[in-house]
């Protein structure tokens, strides 16, 4: 009995996503959800992946990455090049489609992860805000370089990307991401990440190779962001460098910190709520973003640890030993003052 519960708990992201998928499919067949809402939900899924991966760097490792859209654009272009330029678009139907799509996502993720390692290297020398600025600069340089490369459309962007991302596929990748990241955080790697976040010097003194783990965290986050970018490209069927600017990066930061950094639940809730909220406010026309901004500022002022900062729903937690009775992700109360 206990084993079954544990197994269910381990596979909970998949089960949760499956239930969600069934609910949405039923609602869709009863015409309660139209195609537009489906697309919003698909973007919400992509945003969840982006936010969770950003959480790995900002929330769990304590580094500041404010150019995360750069990784997303690399993944988007990497995978779009595979499906559109190498395999020539929509020739594939049915069974052959899936391997091509997976290959493209893998390719996008790998490109992003390699560059993520590269950008992780300055983190050897830079700390805090300066690292944040280098990641911002990195995002903008990627954007400028993509504008220069003509075969992928330059500044005009890339069109004719096949529509491979379905709602089910995105949901599967969301579940996979949650499962992977949760297991990672509760592994020795994750403990090293958290140790670096809480006190880098102490972590160093305890024998953690901080450099290695920081780069690793960047790499893994970049890989996930790359895959999310690939999914994004195949939802929209059109990508251009300018849609991955600082505005996009700050969107993910907003999702992360409004949801609560250092909490996977927070990332999911933040990304889903804040993706859907602007769409629900559409009836306000011009005042839509004004109200959105006010809500955001109010959340940060009155609940600055985020909507579920430091808390985690039970099925995203793994209980290991009595040693960890205290929540590992408890908000840093004393450290808050020192920033």
């Amino acid at each position, binding site marked *: 009995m206990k084993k079954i519960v544990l197994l269910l708990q381990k596979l909970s992201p998949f089960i949760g996503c499956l239930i969600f998928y069934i609910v949405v499919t039923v609602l869709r067949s009863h015409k309660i959800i139209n195609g537009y809402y489906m697309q919003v939900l698909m973007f919400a899924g992509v945003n969840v992946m982006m936010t969770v991966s950003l959480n790995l760097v900002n929330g769990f490792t304590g580094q500041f990455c404010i150019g995360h859209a750069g990784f997303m654009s690399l993944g988007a272009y990497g995978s779009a090049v595979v499906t559109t330029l190498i395999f020539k678009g929509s020739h594939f139907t049915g069974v052959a489609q899936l391997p091509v799509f997976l290959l493209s996502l893998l390719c996008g993720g790998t490109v992003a992860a390699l560059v993520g390692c590269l950008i992780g290297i300055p983190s050897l020398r830079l700390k805090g805000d*300066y690292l944040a600025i*280098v990641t911002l600069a990195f995002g903008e340089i990627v954007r400028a370089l993509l504008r220069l490369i003509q075969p992928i459309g330059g500044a005009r962007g890339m069109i004719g990307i096949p529509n491979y991302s379905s709602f089910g596929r995105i949901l599967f990748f969301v579940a996979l991401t949650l499962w992977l990241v949760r297991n990672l955080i509760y592994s020795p790697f994750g403990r090293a990440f958290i140790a670096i976040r809480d006190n880098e010097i102490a972590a160093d003194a305890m024998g953690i190779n901080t450099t290695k783990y920081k780069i690793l965290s960047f790499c893994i986050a970049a890989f996930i962001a790359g895959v999310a970018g690939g999914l994004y490209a195949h939802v929209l069927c059109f990508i251009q460098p300018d849609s991955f600017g600082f*505005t996009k990066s700050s969107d993910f930061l907003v999702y992360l910190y409004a949801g609560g950094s250092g909490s996977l639940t927070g990332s999911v809730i933040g990304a889903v709520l804040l993706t859907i909220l602007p769409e629900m406010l559409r009836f306000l026309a011009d005042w839509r973003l004004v109200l959105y901004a006010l809500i955001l500022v109010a959340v940060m002022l009155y609940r600055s640890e985020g909507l579920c900062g430091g808390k985690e729903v039970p099925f995203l937690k793994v209980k290991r030993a009595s040693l960890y009775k205290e929540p590992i992700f408890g908000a840093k109360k004393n450290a808050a003052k020192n920033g």
Partner: protein
Amino acid sequence: MASILQFLVYGLQLGSVYALLALGYTMVYGIVGMINTAHGDFLMIGALSTFFIAKAFESINADGTYPMLIVGLIILISMMFTGGIAVTVEAIAYRPLRYKPRMIALITAVGVSMFLENFPRALPFIGPNPRPFPTLFINRTFNVLGASITSTQLIMIVLSAVTMIALDRFVAKTKIGGQMRAVSMDKDAANLMGINVNKVISITFFIGGALAAVSGICYASAYPQVEVYMGSWLGNMSFVAAVLGGIGDIRGAMLGGFILGIAQIFATAINSTFGYAVGFIILIIILLVKPAGIMGTLTIEKV
């Protein structure tokens, strides 16, 4: 030779806009320790308010130009107004978060920036459309060594240089300047010494906002158009300039602004997309060589 001089003038013109804006960034960072992403929008508010104030003075506008005194008055009112907005933003949105982690303040600043851009956009009498900026300065063209320099460019460069020197002296010599430096070193200790930290921070934001207004007027005079989104891109670039020079350092911000402006103009002459990226490339190179920027000093973290 002539074209190099011409580019240099354009570079100085853009650099003075960046430098003025970067000063606000660097002062706020030095004193409060937060990245105020909404600072670029103060530039937009400065330019937009100047547009409306100039419209109010339209009856004095003889043969297309304003008298010098009126121009001074317009600039002054716009500076006061923008400074006031900056102080209000600080009091409402940033003050409660002063002792919270930095990223929280950054996210709040993103929200504030979104509000400052979209609120005027939603107001019916402002709206999203770009407007032509009124000519405030006399327009005459000089020919120096084959390069043509307009009087607007000269006024811009001189105005920003004077403002920067005044600010530098202000922070170095006056009592409030001394209080600012004390707060930037240690807020709690400054408080114990009887310095009103809230007042000093308000003054810092006021100065930052006023400088952003000047920079907005300069920018809008050179590229005569105002719209609600004009600030975000300039804000990012001048933030890069502030970091380049060593964030928290006033002279560094000026230097960074001018380096960035000149480099950007020269690179744009080669390729427009490259001009866009060159600032960031310079930034990364400088940070890899000198991790705290050109003028910045690296603080060593102790246990």
